[in-house]
């Protein structure tokens, strides 16, 4: 993976490597996109979860590689993830050449603060130039900047740029092609933070002809958005709409994808003769492709909304409003959005953790996200509750079935809170990072940037997680379809399908794990369902339908079959209340979803964390399931 990011050594001189540095909200990403277009390559640095982005540009026939370094307020690292920047600049990251020159971005409106960071960068001694962004905003707020005076005070070239309008880009392009001709500071800025602040103030005093007024528009909006009551109501409204968007609005598109895949499968079945090739194409490959792209509507909507809220400036405010709640469980405000998204699906939820600046908090959020009740659990809950919980009213319109469903949702949420608190105090401890959060002025984000970001997230999902999901779907198809023996004669179509499943590898696995799951009250049929549900939780419904030899997936008949099923040896009912309760609880906790595992792998850059998450959630599921089975059995006796 890391090799793929190393620039191709084409004919001619090796490309010039430019490091792009800047604080969060300083317009660094806009500038990166403006310089490199759509050609960014995304990966991870070895050993950390920091995203690595490189893009290419060409100036006067000279090839440039622009390295987008993580946004930071300081070069003095206090976590392994921050240390990657310092190590990269020193050329200590294996397989990544250090930059030859640095381009630093600074927001013109917060120049006095930004210069603290610029001072740190200039102390590195590499050829550097400063890009002052948001000068349009500075002018709108009555400020004026003298770039020439700023350049003279700093001793390095300065270009004022309005990235999304392309102003200053021509000048910048001309400049970055020739770092060898850049002026260098006579003396480096002071190393001591207090002395550097004095230096920054004197530089700002010379460069800012007129300092900007306070942003009146932002102040006006914040009077509502950060108001104790109105702000809280707005936060709740935004979250409800956000949730509705990924939960309900993505559904028509997802259904359409399902229908298209189904039509494709029917087409394959109609065109090809019966046999292995046909089954593989229809049930293995096409089903696998379908299980990847079915996530796209949610991911596209999620990231469009997420990046819009982020770029407009609301996400930081939402984090400010809700931080206290999340702080109680050791997380931070932005984790709220990720956990909320996980109610729709843990895949976009885990991808949403990218907005969490602290890598440690991000990891904890990723590890507990699968506990939020995702929409794939709903068909399983609906089947079991519909079949075994009586549809009687508890109080007025409040029915027992609804209460059980609500209880399952709450159980998952409580488990996530407890797991986060425990993980934060045990495994993912370490030096506490300070919490700080900048509230940027409200901005109208350029649509092109938004489209770039959304496309970047979607394509990363397709390439990194999609390939794994596709592969595992095909493997599961193999497990469920082989060996392909001919069923004994005289069986109906449904009975033949059941016979196939039982003698398949998955069926044998179901039988093999029966002793292990028997204490939970599960028999081999549920075991096969659990294996198959690794593809996606709701697959257990279709698998059970197949095992019970039902021609269609009609829920009514499957409910009947489950209720009527008895053990062949003892004649006892398979689905006792204790077994049903244990199975429901198992689905609350278990990470029965390889798409989630694949996306965890992609976001944490190792199999270690998905393996850990799978393990601890399986242990939790087994223990809770066992306890539930015992408890309900005891209550019933």
């Amino acid at each position, binding site marked *: 993976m890391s090799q793929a990011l190393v620039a191709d050594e084409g004919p001619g001189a090796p490309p010039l490597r430019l490091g792009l540095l800047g604080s969060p909200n300083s317009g660094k990403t806009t500038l990166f996109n403006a310089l490199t277009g759509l050609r960014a390559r995304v990966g991870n640095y070895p050993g950390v979860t920091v995203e690595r982005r490189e893009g290419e540009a060409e100036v006067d026939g000279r090839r440039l590689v622009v390295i987008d370094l993580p946004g930071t*307020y*300081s070069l*003095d690292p*206090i976590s392994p993830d921050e240390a990657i920047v310092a190590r990269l600049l020193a050329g200590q990251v294996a397989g990544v050449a250090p930059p030859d020159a640095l381009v630093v971005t600074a927001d013109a*409106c*917060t*120049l*006095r*603060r930004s210069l*603290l*960071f610029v001072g*740190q960068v200039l102390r590195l001694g590499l050829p550097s130039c400063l890009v002052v962004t948001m000068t349009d905003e500075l002018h709108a707020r009555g400020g004026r900047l003298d770039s020439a005076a700023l350049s003279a005070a700093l001793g390095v070239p300065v270009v004022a740029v309005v990235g999304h309008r392309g102003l200053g880009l021509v000048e910048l392009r001309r400049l970055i092609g020739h770092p060898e001709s850049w002026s260098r500071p006579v003396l480096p800025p002071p190393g001591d*933070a*207090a002395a550097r*602040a*004095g230096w920054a103030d004197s530089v700002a005093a010379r460069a800012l002809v007129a*300092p*900007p007024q306070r942003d009146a528009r932002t102040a006006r909006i*914040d009077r509502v958005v*950060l108001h*104790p*009551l109105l*702000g*809280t109501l707005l936060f709740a409204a935004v979250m409800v709409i956000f949730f509705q968007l990924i939960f309900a609005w993505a559904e028509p598109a997802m259904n359409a994808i399902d229908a298209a895949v189904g039509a494709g499968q029917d087409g394959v079945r109609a065109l090809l003769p019966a046999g292995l090739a046909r089954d593989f194409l229809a049930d293995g490959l096409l089903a696998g492709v379908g299980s990847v792209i079915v996530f796209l509507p949610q991911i596209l909507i999620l990231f469009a909304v997420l990046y819009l809220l982020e770029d407009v400036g609301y996400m930081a405010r939402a984090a*400010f*409003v809700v*931080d*206290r*709640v999340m*702080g109680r469980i050791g997380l931070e405000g932005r984790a709220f959005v990720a956990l909320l998204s996980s109610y729709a699906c843990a895949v976009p939820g885990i991808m949403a953790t990218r907005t969490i600046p602290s890598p440690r908090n991000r990891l904890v959020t990723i590890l507990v996200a699968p506990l939020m009740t995702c929409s794939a659990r709903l068909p399983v809950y609906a089947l079991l509750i519909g079949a075994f919980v009586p549809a009687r009213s508890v109080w007025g319109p409040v029915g027992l079935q609804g209460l059980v469903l609500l209880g399952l949702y709450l159980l998952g949420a409580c488990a996530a809170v407890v797991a986060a608190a425990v993980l934060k105090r045990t495994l993912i401890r370490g*030096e*506490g*990072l*300070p*919490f*700080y*959060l*900048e*509230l*940027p002025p409200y901005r109208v984000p350029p649509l092109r940037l938004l489209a770039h970001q959304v496309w970047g997230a979607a394509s990363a999902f397709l390439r990194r997680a999609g390939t794994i999901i596709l592969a595992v779907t095909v493997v599961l198809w193999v497990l469920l379809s082989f060996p392909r023996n001919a069923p004994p004669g005289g069986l109906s179509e449904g009975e033949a399908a059941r016979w196939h499943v039982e003698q398949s590898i998955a069926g044998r696995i179901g039988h093999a794990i029966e002793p292990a799951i028997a204490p939970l009250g599960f028999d081999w049929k549920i075991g096969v369902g659990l294996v198959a549900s690794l593809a996606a939780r709701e697959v257990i419904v279709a698998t059970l339908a197949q095992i019970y030899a039902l021609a269609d997936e009609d829920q009514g008949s499957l409910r009947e079959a489950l209720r009527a099923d008895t053990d062949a040896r003892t004649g006892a009912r398979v689905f006792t209340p204790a077994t049903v309760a244990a199975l429901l609880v198992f689905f609350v906790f278990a990470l029965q979803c390889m798409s989630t595992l694949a996306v965890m792998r992609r976001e944490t850059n190792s199999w270690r964390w998905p393996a850990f998450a799978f393990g601890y959630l399986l242990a939790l599921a087994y223990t809770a399931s066992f306890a539930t089975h015992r408890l309900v059995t005891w209550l019933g006796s």
Partner: protein
Amino acid sequence: MNLARLPVGGAAVVEAVTDGSPVSARLLDLGFVPGTEVRALRRAPLGDPTLYELRGAQLCLRRSEAERILVRALPERETP
């Protein structure tokens, strides 16, 4: 007094950041250096964190971080 005790609407000048821990070093890098003027703008609806203005930027700190910053309150001024 420490910054966490600065009432909303009040202004103060940073005098020192306590201890030499990495957290304090980061607070210095964020601009909380002695002599810097800080204003408390708002508290979050649940009382924490608090939004501060310094060096032309708006930054939230939780109480635990603000308590590390020692400040001298400035007398009340009429805001223009």
